[in-house]
């Protein structure tokens, strides 16, 4: 019997599919081990931190992991470190010069175990969780991502207050300057802690008594090092609150700090970019339907309120593609404030006049896409979309991360069976052929680009972005360049546990597209069929909103949501600054909570010594009747210079009682209240989930698809989930 024969027999063995739980368990266990190992590495080789950085970041396929080189250079590094540490008196004095109030003694105990050995990592995370009071961070703390691209946990400012702790983190800082002959002066960065009172600092040159509450100063590099460590520990813990045992939070969201209340006298102008993404609402819905409260960072209030369609009056035609609608009415959760509701409705493209659509799907077919709520759902979604296309519209399909390559060359929608056949062929898994996924998709799109029509790449994934460009920044740049050449990008997210929301949002933003999360077939129908025009056809791009509040009428304001869309005042007129796009038929809603002048609900005290702006001359006519002035800037899709629409907001837009306010306003207020409850925002006072239900229920008039009734259901689910002590 030859080998061939033998092989043939052996091949006949039927291999059963591995169980999904088993596979998930394997992945989880492996990831845990991986993180543990990374943890160990960080601790054991602190002195080699700069080496690791050098090796991992700079050398793709180049000189790599040659341990002998690493060890010899590391020895030199150690010598330098020793030198540096010994010869920096400031460090030493800082280490020895602190005394702490007894308040923190218990925390000190657990903090002293840092850096913990891997088996004691729970004590470190405990330390993090003990920090129950939100720690105030000064404005100097930057949010967003640090150099390596990992999202910085803006909330994490736990200081490493032990002597060894500081010494160790100091060491890291030293090495990154790699290697200095003399210690360089440390840049100072301040942290203000609620609970710690410092009584004395030795070695301080000017003998100034430190203000109470300043603990110590930490250099930016140390901040980054600490942030990274704590973020990775947080991830080790599962990345979020472990509510139900089966659900491991590997989903990634950008950390968001809710907008704070602003004083009109100090910052009268508020500027932000619109957002029509709806992913957050679908994701929240998914979590609640599974019986869990969503991660706080998953709740983007602007996306929740924008999920719904509102009955704002339509613009007449394309020349002024949208019309703003405003309403002012009492805040349901605060008797001393009012809500300013701004609605913008986009022009609806008439189906006969709709431009030709050239769609290129780029589909993640990695093994993880096999579950029912991912690839199968996506296939059904695309099938539905294909049904609605005009005969001249075209579709192309490319895949990545499992197989790679073109599954369907550009085909007219009139050849429906060919398209459907290609969709049927899609399956998850298979060996990977290092994808050039995204480049392929775009070249497919470019090959048959129609300058008169709409050219869009639709990326569908559960979180795997190994599309051939691994560096997220490079990927973003690529998408941005392509956008400029006329090919837009939309991103569809599926599934749970692997979802990379932050990256999805960024890519969609850069690609002049939107990001949606598809949790079920209804949502698929909504995004790809009912609102397909909105998803596919842009009627205005780079849409920015700017509001100037009248200090004579309003003393404070707070924008609810849009934390990730805020713009600088000068960005408003700057056409180089990118902003969100409005698609055909889309509506955009934003809500401010405003404090009328003289209200006893005012949170921030007026300056005692500030210039009283009231007494100065105010330019606008009728300054006692206008609350604020709204400006909207946008570009028509073919143009690159922006245009402006403006509208004054005055008592003519006001409703004295909540019940008088339009139904849409009341419903939007309910959604916004719900979002704040889910996030645990402090401004929501005593408002409860029941209050949300009452407010919403009274405002539902037309609900053709049942989305608003579904909303009521979600609020009930949240009420139950939170009552069960999830939060």
């Amino acid at each position, binding site marked *: 019997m030859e*080998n061939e024969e033998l092989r043939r*027999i*052996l091949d006949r063995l039927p291999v059963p599919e*591995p169980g999904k739980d088993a596979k998930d368990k*394997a*992945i989880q266990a492996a990831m845990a081990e991986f993180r543990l190992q990374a943890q160990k590495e960080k601790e054991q080789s602190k002195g080699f931190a700069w080496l690791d950085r050098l090796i*991992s970041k700079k050398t793709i396929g180049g000189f790599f992991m040659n341990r002998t080189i690493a060890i010899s250079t590391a020895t030199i590094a150690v010598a330098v470190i020793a030198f540096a540490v010994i010869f920096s008196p400031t460090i030493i004095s800082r280490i020895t010069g602190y005394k702490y109030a007894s308040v923190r003694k218990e925390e000190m105990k657990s903090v002293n175990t840092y850096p913990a050995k891997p088996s004691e990592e729970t004590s470190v995370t405990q330390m993090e969780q003990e920090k129950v009071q939100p720690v105030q961070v000064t404005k100097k703390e930057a949010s967003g991502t640090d150099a390596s691209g990992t999202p910085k946990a803006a909330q994490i400012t736990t200081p490493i207050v032990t002597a060894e702790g500081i010494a160790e983190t100091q060491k890291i800082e030293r090495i990154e300057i790699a290697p200095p002959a003399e210690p360089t002066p440390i840049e100072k960065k301040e942290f203000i802690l609620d609970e710690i009172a410092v009584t004395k600092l030795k070695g301080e040159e000017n003998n100034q008594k430190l203000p109470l509450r300043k603990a110590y100063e930490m250099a930016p590099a140390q901040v980054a090092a600490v942030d990274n460590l704590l973020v990775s520990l947080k991830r080790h813990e599962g990345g979020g609150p472990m509510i139900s045992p089966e659900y491991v939070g590997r989903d990634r969201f950008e950390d968001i700090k809710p907008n704070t209340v602003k004083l009109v006298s100090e910052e009268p102008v508020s500027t932000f970019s619109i957002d029509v993404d709806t992913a957050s609402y679908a994701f929240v819905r998914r979590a609640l339907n599974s019986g869990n409260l969503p991660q706080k960072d998953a709740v983007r209030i602007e996306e929740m309120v924008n999920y719904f369609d509102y009955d704002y009056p339509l613009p007449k035609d394309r020349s002024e593609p949208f019309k703003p609608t405003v309403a002012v009415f009492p805040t349901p959760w605060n008797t001393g404030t009012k809500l300013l509701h701004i609605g913008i409705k986009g022009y609806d493209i008439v189906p006969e006049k709709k431009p030709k659509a050239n769609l290129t799907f780029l589909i993640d077919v*990695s*093994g993880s896409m096999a579950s029912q709520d991912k690839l199968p759902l996506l296939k059904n979604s695309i099938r539905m979309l294909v049904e609605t296309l005009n005969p001249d519209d075209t579709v192309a399909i490319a895949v990545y991360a499992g197989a790679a390559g073109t599954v369907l060359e550009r085909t007219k929608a009139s050849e429906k069976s060919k398209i459907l056949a290609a969709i049927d062929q899609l399956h998850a898994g298979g060996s990977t052929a290092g994808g050039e996924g995204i480049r392929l998709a775009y070249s497919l799109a470019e090959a048959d680009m129609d300058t008169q029509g709409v050219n869009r790449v639709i990326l569908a994934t559960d979180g795997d972005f190994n599309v051939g460009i691994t560096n997220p920044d490079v990927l973003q740049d690529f998408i941005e360049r392509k956008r400029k050449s006329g090919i837009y990008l939309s991103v569809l997210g599926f599934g749970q546990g692997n979802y990379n929301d932050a990256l999805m949002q960024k890519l969609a933003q850069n690609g002049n597209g939107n990001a949606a999360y598809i949790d079920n077939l209804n949502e698929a129908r909504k995004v790809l069929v009912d609102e397909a025009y909105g998803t596919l056809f842009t009627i205005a791009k780079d849409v920015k909103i700017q509001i100037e509040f009248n200090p004579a009428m309003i003393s404070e304001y707070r924008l609810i949501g849009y934390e990730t869309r805020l713009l600088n005042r000068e960005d408003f007129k700057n056409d180089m600054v990118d902003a969100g796009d409005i698609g055909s038929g889309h509506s955009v809603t934003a809500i401010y909570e405003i404090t009328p002048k003289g209200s006893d609900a005012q949170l921030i005290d007026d300056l005692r010594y500030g210039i009283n702006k009231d007494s100065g001359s105010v330019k606008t006519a009728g300054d006692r009747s206008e609350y604020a002035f709204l400006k909207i800037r946008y570009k028509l899709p073919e143009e690159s210079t922006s245009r402006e629409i403006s509208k004054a907001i005055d008592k003519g837009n006001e409703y004295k009682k909540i019940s008088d306010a339009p139904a849409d306003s009341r419903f939007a207020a309910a959604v916004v209240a719900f979002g704040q409850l889910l996030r645990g925002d402090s401004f929501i006072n005593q408002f409860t989930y029941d209050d949300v239900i009452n407010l919403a229920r009274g405002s539902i008039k037309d609900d053709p698809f049942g989305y608003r009734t579904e909303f009521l259901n979600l609020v009930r689910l949240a009420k139950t989930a939170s009552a069960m002590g999830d939060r």
Partner: protein
Amino acid sequence: MTNDPDMELVDLAIGGDERSFESLIERHYMSIYQLSFRWCRVKEDAEEITQEVFIKLGRKLNTFNRRSSFKTWLYRITINTAKDYSRKNATSRFYEAAFAEEHSREKSDLTASNPIGVKELYEAIDTLPARQKAALMLVAAEGMNHKEAAAVLKCSETTVSWRIHQARKTLKKIFSGWFENGK
């Protein structure tokens, strides 16, 4: 190795990028599971072995010296893990002898309608010394050539050939009739 298709992901993963590490697992899960299943033929055990392999991967990824391709290295881990598993569930020598006796075929027994069953063959392979089984699995079941198998098993190509030869000799003895029939 210059054209290792896993190289980019491996680089990133070793650099600490979790997503890349996860992608690596996704990429290779099925092949490892398949090999494991062929080795033990019990679904749950195969899942266990596979899990163990990837846990080891998480632990040892940064020791990968790149002298072979990533896949080769991963297969090596798999073979070793599978061998460990077998050792723990070892059948005694007695059993092997009995098995051989039970399953030997007389020349006259063999007909077209009574060929060697798949399961029987696998069970027979189970009785081989682990090294021979490993070599045979890689070459005959996974379809590697002797050189590739040698890379996984960290031995010379000649050694692989020798082990295959020995393995077939044993199988021949077990299924003596079948072989002699010239099939």
